[in-house]
């Protein structure tokens, strides 16, 4: 058998092949989550006034670079995190969905400000979508109108906590059939 055929027969182990968490998967969890959470690339999805606060948080006084998130990329292909800052309306919603779909996994969404959370002061407008969670799944909501940069940072730190909960192999729940007779009774 030639070298190339021998290479093709090698089966590479994947972390997901483990049936239960062990020291290898938890260490991998820790390393990957630490890397992902401390170098998130946000997507500049500033729509309205909150965008100015998001911009301000990137500059000198409220430095977002101390959290490793100063790499704001304008293209969804290179981003992990979409910070929806501003009001989403019916004209913008399909565009938002399309851009969200273009981001690659793993991806997270932060809804920044009252408008993105629930429509904000414009909730009864005929053209306003009451919250971006009607269009894309949201991980962290940041209230405020506009939220101060410190509030944005609190939201980002919450998101870091959420990112760090990733597990390659989840803990399995206890076997159900041992408890089933008790449940049916």
């Amino acid at each position, binding site marked *: 058998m030639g070298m190339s055929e021998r290479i093709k027969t090698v089966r590479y182990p994947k972390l997901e092949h483990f049936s239960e968490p062990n020291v290898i998967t938890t260490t991998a969890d820790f390393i990957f989550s630490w890397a992902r959470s401390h170098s998130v690339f946000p997507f500049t999805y500033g729509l309205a006034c909150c965008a100015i606060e998001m911009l301000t948080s990137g500059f000198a006084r409220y430095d977002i670079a101390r959290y490793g998130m100063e790499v704001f990329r304008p293209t969804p292909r290179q981003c992990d995190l979409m910070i929806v800052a501003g009001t989403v309306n*019916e*004209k913008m*919603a399909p565009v938002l969905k399309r851009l969200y779909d273009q981001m690659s996994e793993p991806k997270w969404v932060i809804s920044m400000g009252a408008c993105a959370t629930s429509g904000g002061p414009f909730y009864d407008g*005929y*053209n306003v*979508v*009451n919250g971006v969670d*009607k*269009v894309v799944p949201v991980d962290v909501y940041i209230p405020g109108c506009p939220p101060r940069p410190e509030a944005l940072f609190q939201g980002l730190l919450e998101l870091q906590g959420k990112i760090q909960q990733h597990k390659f192999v989840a803990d399995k729940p206890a076997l159900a059939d041992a408890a089933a007779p008790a449940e049916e009774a």
Partner: protein
Amino acid sequence: MGLEVGSNPMSMDAIAALLAERFAGDLADIRIQEPDTIRTKCAPEQLKDIARRLKDDPDAGYETLNWIAGVDRQASIESIYHVYSWQTNTWLELHVDLPRENPEVDTVTGVWPAADWHEREAWDMVGIVYLGHPDLRRILLKDDFIGHPLRKDYIDLAENHPHA
């Protein structure tokens, strides 16, 4: 060089008298709104002609269009043109009343090029049709929006809210 503000200052009464004289009968109900605006009305059929004459007037040429608003007055629909005269540094507010069932009026894009988008917005929001407009389509709302929101009888339709 060039464009000066207020090169021919006139008092408001003088401007009102000038308009009454030159546009006798066409501009109705000329009123002065302090400190520097004149309100007046005209009929929709004469709008194009009056707009051209207002712009070309040698003493108080209203050369710049400030804004156009559509207002739903329930009995009728009104198209308001707010224009500015550089020579006298005054404004003129021209009200044109249109029938509610068929709010059509000539476009003034041939006179004031700025009217392009202002008329599109009035069409979008109130539903006034500007005859002869080069490209009368929605500007602020999505293309398949149903209805004209700033009308008083506008009902929020579910079709306009696919993402509710």
